[in-house]
């Protein structure tokens, strides 16, 4: 039995998040057996017919088990009848065990989450502005609560006042604190997380019992699990196959009587044959596959609202990816200083550096670094110029600079600097425009550097800011293309810039100067053509598009509106994860298809074992079908039943882990899986049944 123990879950503490992710599912044998044993009580509890009837195939096995038990009780002296009965019960139990093991993986995570939820006391603000202490469970939507350093946030909500660093490790598993502040896209807080510093006021947006953590608990426990559309379709197909086999076996009794083989076809034997033939392998593992698929997502720190979304991910044919943070590194970097005619590179570099010292944005810092590094301009510090006036970069002016020693230096977005120059009596040289156009055409962002000395403002040169495409993205997009998925880059940049980056990154298409409405329109257009669209988003203005997309992944750092609109939440807020989500969706479907094919292909060998066993006495010629040369009719039938039960256990690890998925076209995947699970399913039982028969034939009374 030890060879068939399923791969258990990590032995590390069951904390959701990277900690759990870090321990791959390859522990030793001992813990696997332990996990099976731990799941045993659950498996027995699942024998409840009201639960089993939801899986038609296994319900038939349950009825068969009860039936053979009754038959065995009526004839207690028949060891064969008892042996069949025991193995039929084991078949049922193994199926439940598979599901229980799959569910068990989520249970531990749920317990940790539950600890984070219980026993919070909220400091509610009354309308008159005083505080009152109420249990977290008494909070209503719209209540305002105060949280200070050390407090656990009592419920999901939006920060309406203040800034605080928050420890969200209870939800994300990430120990580094995050900043949450009122207004903007970083205002959402999750109940159960802890404020580390400062004071915030939070408006509660979720009722107790419906908070994010509550939903997570239900999700990982599988309490909300509903059959997905494809799972329903497969269940229907399996049920109809079960009916066909029921027909074949029930009519076999009169056929056998006509053939004079009544003696061999006892009701025990026919029940055994039925259980062997109906697709028990996939029937037993179907729900475990679904649960494990969700679990694989949770392990990658993605929470899916429903299994339906995971399934849809496998079907996605268009992937909308935000440029910034997904395709390119979050920030642009300065790549070159280009002087206008009559100005030297060193002058531009020096002015660019000075004007960027007060610019704390990553772009500003990259300009200083470039000037110091590549252009060898001496390092400068703001305190070197005590009388200078520093102008920090702001989103409104889109410029930064310094006024010192009679010079006023400015650097910033082309439009803003040009306006500043003209305002200060300067003219713009033609080659400045030429340079900016050239940079824009190459996909870069031009920043202008200008100076006002001697009463006149003039442009010194241009800074070339460049997006840096993340390493390995080109290869990833190539993989997606082979899988038949089109990638579309979404960016606020102008079309020229967008095209250059799209080409560099290797995406199939781009949407430039994209507004949220454009995004929504693009999704609708793709969907009208029958395509399924996946996207990520975090801002409130992404919410409509997230809701419209077939797979909408909201970043955990995003607003609660975005999280509400999407059907998945990525706790790591890593937009590239969309690609992994698609792969998990595909893997889920492939595992189902592979095990169904395997299950059906198995039946051929079972017929070759059982039919000669039943009828070789009536028609000796049929013994020629006994190609496995099984020892006796009893051992043949019992071997088929035992194989049928053990194969469920043997395939539990595969069901939990999922069939290996490779980024390849449909033809290659089909050829590989058909060979592995179709032909494998045809051959494996011939070997397995023969081996079991060899062992059984050693037993007295059977062989």
């Amino acid at each position, binding site marked *: 039995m030890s060879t068939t123990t399923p791969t258990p879950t990590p032995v590390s503490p069951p904390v959701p998040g990277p900690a759990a992710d870090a321990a791959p599912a390859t522990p030793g044998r001992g813990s696997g057996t332990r996990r099976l044993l731990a799941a045993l009580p659950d498996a027995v509890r699942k024998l409840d017919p009201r639960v089993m009837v939801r899986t038609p195939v296994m319900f038939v096995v349950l009825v068969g088990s009860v039936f053979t038990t009754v038959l065995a009780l009526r004839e207690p002296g028949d060891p064969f009848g008892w042996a069949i009965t025991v193995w039929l019960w084991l078949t049922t139990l193994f199926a439940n065990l598979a599901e229980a093991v799959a569910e068990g993986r989520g249970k531990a995570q749920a317990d940790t989450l539950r600890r984070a939820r219980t026993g919070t006391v909220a400091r509610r603000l009354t309308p008159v502005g005083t505080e009152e202490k109420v249990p977290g469970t008494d909070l209503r939507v719209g209540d305002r609560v105060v949280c200070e350093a050390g407090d656990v946030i009592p419920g999901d909500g939006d920060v309406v006042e203040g800034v605080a660093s928050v420890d969200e490790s209870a939800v994300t598993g990430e120990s580094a604190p995050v900043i949450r502040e009122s207004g903007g896209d970083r205002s959402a807080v999750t109940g159960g997380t802890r404020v580390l510093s400062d004071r915030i006021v939070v408006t509660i947006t979720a009722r107790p019992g419906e908070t994010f953590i509550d939903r997570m608990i239900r999700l990982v426990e599988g309490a909300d699990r509903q059959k997905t*559309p494809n799972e329903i379709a497969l269940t229907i197909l399996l049920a*109809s196959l079960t009916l066909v086999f029921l027909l074949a076996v029930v009519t076999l009794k009169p056929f056998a009587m006509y*053939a004079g083989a009544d003696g061999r076809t006892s009701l025990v034997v026919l029940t055994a044959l039925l259980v062997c033939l109906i697709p028990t392998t996939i029937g037993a593992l179907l729900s475990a596959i679904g649960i494990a698929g969700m679990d694989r997502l949770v392990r990658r720190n993605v929470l899916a609202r429903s299994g339906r979304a995971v399934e849809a991910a496998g079907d996605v*044919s268009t992937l909308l990816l935000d440029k910034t943070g997904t395709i390119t590194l979050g920030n642009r970097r300065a790549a070159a200083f280009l002087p206008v005619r009559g100005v030297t590179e060193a002058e531009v570099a020096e002015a660019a550096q000075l004007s960027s010292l007060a610019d704390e944005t990553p772009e500003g810092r990259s300009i200083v670094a470039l000037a110091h590094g590549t252009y060898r301009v001496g390092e400068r510090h703001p305190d070197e110029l005590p009388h200078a006036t520093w102008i920090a970069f702001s989103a409104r002016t889109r410029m930064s600079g310094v006024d010192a020693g009679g010079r006023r230096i400015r650097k910033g977005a082309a439009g803003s600097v040009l306006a500043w120059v003209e305002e200060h009596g300067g003219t713009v040289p033609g080659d400045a425009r030429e340079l900016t156009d050239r940079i824009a055409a190459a996909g870069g962002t031009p920043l202008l550097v200008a100076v006002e000395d001697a009463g006149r403002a003039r442009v010194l040169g241009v800074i070339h800011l460049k997006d840096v495409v993340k390493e390995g993205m080109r290869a990833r997009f190539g993989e997606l293309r082979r899988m038949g998925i089109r990638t579309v880059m979404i960016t606020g940049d102008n079309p020229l810039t967008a095209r250059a980056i799209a080409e560099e990154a290797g995406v199939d298409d781009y949407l430039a100067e994209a507004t949220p409405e454009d995004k929504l329109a693009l999704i609708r257009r793709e969907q009208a053509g029958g395509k399924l669209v996946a996207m990520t988003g975090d801002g409130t203005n992404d919410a409509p598009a997230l809701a419209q997309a077939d797979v909408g992944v909201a970043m955990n750092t995003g607003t609660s509106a975005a999280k509400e609109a999407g059907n998945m939440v990525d706790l790591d807020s890593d937009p590239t994860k969309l690609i992994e989500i698609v792969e998990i969706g595909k893997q889920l479907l492939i595992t189902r298809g*592979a095990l169904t094919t395997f299950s059906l292909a198995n*039946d051929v060998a079972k017929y070759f074992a059982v039919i000669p066993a039943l009828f070789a006495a009536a028609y000796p010629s049929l013994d020629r079908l006994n190609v496995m040369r099984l020892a006796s009719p009893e051992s043949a039938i019992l071997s088929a039943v035992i194989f049928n039960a053990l194969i469920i256990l043997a395939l539990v690890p595969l069901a939990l882990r999922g069939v290996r998925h490779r980024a390849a076209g449909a033809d290659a995947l089909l050829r590989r899986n058909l060979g592995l699970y179709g032909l494998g399913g045809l051959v494996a039982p011939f070997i397995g049944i023969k081996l079991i028969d060899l062992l059984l034939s050693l037993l007295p009374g059977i062989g």
Partner: protein
Amino acid sequence: MSPVLAGILQLLALVVALGLAYRPLGDHMARVYTSSRHLRAERWIYRAIGADPDSEMRWPAYLRGVLAFSAAGVLFLYLLQRLQGSLPGSLGFVSIDPDQAFNTAASFVSNTNWQSYAGEQAMGHLVQTGGLAVQNFVSAAVGMAVAVAFVRGFARSRTGELGNFWTDLVRGVTRVLLPLSVAGALVLVACGTIQNFSGVHEVGRFLGGTQQWNGGAVASQEVIKNLGTNGGGYFNANSAHPFENPNPVSNLFQIFLILLVPVALTRTFGRMVGSVRQGYAILATTGVIWLVLTALMLTTEFAGRGPAFELAGGAMEGKETRFGIAGSSLFAVATTLTSTGAVNSFHSSFTGFGGGIAMLGMQLGEIAPGGVGSGLYGMLIMAVVAVFLAGLMVGRTPEYLGRKIGSREITHAACYLLVTPALVLGLTAASVSLDGPAGATTNTGAHGFSEILYAYTSAAHNNGSAFAGLHADTPWFNTTLGIAMLLGRFLPMVFVLALAGSLARQVPVPATAGTLRTEKPLFSGLLAGTVAIVAGLTYFPALALGPLAEGLAA
């Protein structure tokens, strides 16, 4: 020339002839069912039956048309037989008994043409030509209409409309079956098949009694019998009768006629869904199954062992010397793989395996190439099931021709697949359990079981061929076989049309590199495998107790 070589040459000739006819006929049918023009004669018909040929029907309306038309056909044929004695053109034959009249009416309307009567001893000119031959045309046209409606389910999108049943029915007759029949009848007459309205002739003495032959419009009925995959012969001996099928050339021509329309319909399918390669893929699956079964049949029949076989030069019992083993084997496979059921030899007298191959041909669902129309929709249903399994294995929710196969679609396909096994196995089980029906066999043991299994297999799959040996003209068999024929024909049509309705409503999913390519050889092979495994798993125990037990004993 050795008989084996002759057989191979016949097979080659057949493949070449079908290959030549494939494109023109397939394209012609695609035009027939998509054109918006009506012939003048067709307008008269529409006016006469009060149909608006340009209105579109959703699947329930289409189905109502099919069922109403067929019910009227059953009633008309039943009354015609029951009243034969009082009507002109009876050749002096009396009216048919109720159970046999029901059986025959069900049989011809369901395109089965199971015959529990001997034509030349029971049916006069009026019933034969005015009743049975007419149904030979229209029952075939109904099958084609349903197939075309199903194909429209794949070809159309965002609509529930599947075309107009009356238009499809009428055009199938006027533009496909009638012109081909006229040409085919001329060829048959040239081969020596008779065509007249002469009465009963006494032709000398035989075994101490007089022998009677009657003439009739045989060639005209013969051509549609094969072309429409009907199979009901003018004479009891069917295509073994020299008046129906005089020589090896007419024999080969009849096999060609049997396969012609079902094979060409795969082209029509490809044309209508806008990808002839999809049609080729279905054709390839069909061709592989047909060739494999033909090769197996030729092998087992030529490999007959034992002194009796040696003396006769092979398994010649029950076969006509003018066709030989090859001509009989080719015919037997063609007639059972389509829903024709015409025979030029006695399938009961084939080797054990040979009889099993004939039975398996029907149990595969009569889809390679199958009956006119019914073969195409049967194979497409199998394709839906194959796509479901294979589609999952490429990591997408399954889709065929851009249509998603969800729970609604798979439910219809699964119900379709359940109908015939339930009828065949259920009624066979009932028959072998009852003393009367079980005693109606000529043989006992495995061969006796095959006689009954074959009868219900043939009826439920609308084949109509008989194994011989079973005394089927009893109230039990006439009634249960009649029910099997009607349910085996029309229940699947319900599911086919319902499936077409839900397919036509969908927005097609565009194909990408991640889409399962259903026009590739890999899929054709997978489809053939699915067909084999579904039929094999359903019927293996039954086949083991009949033809396998017999064949393995030889």
